[in-house]
């Protein structure tokens, strides 16, 4: 799977968690999930579960800390897909 494919699928999953401010923000690889997109920390866990289901991967707890931005989340997903 290409990076751009992961970006598109991840954007779709993240979109479900965005409030109006988040939806109006720039959605880029450097966007911070908590700070820029206003996803709360509890929902971040639900997002990780959605990601696991979507890509059929398992993301262990130590990896969660790396998923701070859209881009770093893509890195985690791609590393698991390999």
């Amino acid at each position, binding site marked *: 799977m290409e990076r751009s494919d992961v970006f598109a699928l991840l954007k779709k999953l993240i979109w479900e*968690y965005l409030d109006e401010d988040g939806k109006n923000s720039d959605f880029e690889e450097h966007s911070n999930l908590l700070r820029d997109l206003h996803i709360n920390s509890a929902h971040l*866990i639900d997002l990780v*579960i959605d990601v696991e289901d979507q890509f059929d991967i398992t993301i262990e707890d130590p990896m969660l800390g790396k998923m701070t931005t859209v881009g770093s989340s893509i890195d985690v997903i791609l590393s698991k897909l390999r």
Partner: protein
Amino acid sequence: MKRVVVTGLGVVAPNGINVPEFRKAIESGKSGVRFSTELELLRSGCQVAGLPNFESNVLNEYFTSNTLRNLNSTGVQYGCAAAIEAWLDAGLQVGEQAVDLDAGCVFGSALPDLSFGSELISKAIASNGARIGTRYIEQIMGSGTGAYITGLLGLGNYSVSTSVACATGTEAILNAANRIRAGFAKRMLAGSNEATDAYTWFAFDGMGVTNKYSNHDADGASMPMSQHAKGFIPGAGAGALILEDLEVALARGARIYAEIKGGWTSSGGGRNGGTMTANSFEGMVWCIKRAMLDAEVEPGDIDLICGHLTSTKGDVKEVQAWAEALGRRGSEFPVINSLKSMIGHCLGAAGSIECVAAVLQLHHSFIHPSINCQLPHQEIIDLIDEQRIPQHILKCQMKVVAKANFGFGDVSSCIFFSGI
């Protein structure tokens, strides 16, 4: 002490899932008791229940799609829907307004939603240690519904979730009213909810307190005060009232349904015949008398008693308690009816749904029929004129309407409504 008025109503009941539908149903004596396939699957003796015909999409306008996703507890859904309806009915806005430190919320429930809890248990067992998501705790915690409501409406004054068995709804309304009376708040959202939950109903069935003999006749299954009453019919739903300081309501030109004159919540203390499952007679009488004192209501002022009256042997004792507390018997006894004849016993939601009905009757000058009581219990008609139990709708102006609930743990709660 501040005067407290009711300015908004909301309801999700087995016979009507909003106030206009509910009012029409209670005026016509329409039952909301239906056959329950979930109770049938459990092989419950009682297989009928008061089931709200509810579609959760009424919440779509008010919560984000993400919040609505996995909002699966019916109790939370009913509570939020009733609260939103009441808030809008009072002419208030739902939106991104700032927190209101003068407005609060008391919202109760009697039992956890075990049907939703069973989803959590199944998922936990099947998870093999994997994450199960973050949406379980917020819906299963006792204050979950209240948290959704206060978060949606920005209620910052006070936010508690109460539990007093079958007296939960009435107590929540009194609790909220007393906060305004004391000058601690200007506006309160008060109510209670109970989930559609066959597991808790099955547990009641196992105690022998439900009617196991009317599965073929759902409409006729709940028969408070009847000679044929064989046990209660469980039910679910929610009721909500907006209470305001009279001065605040008048200043903003709000429609006023009724005034809360006062009331009382107490326990028989598990003495004098009071047990976990039965109220002490003295405890019930004392609560009604103390409520009249608090409300400055005289026994002769009361035109209508909206009883607890569950369709069990407790009905006789309750009517005796009212007669004793008021000192009124025979044709002098107030008219008495039971909403449970139409919707069953909605447990923690009973008090708030029944208070919505009480306020509607007072405001619109009618008394709803107490259905399925063609032959009142002999011990009841030994005490009061059977004409005091309405078989059909009555149209009349009323001065004071009494509403009481009595519950497990020997608890009592009694409230009085009047016009202003």
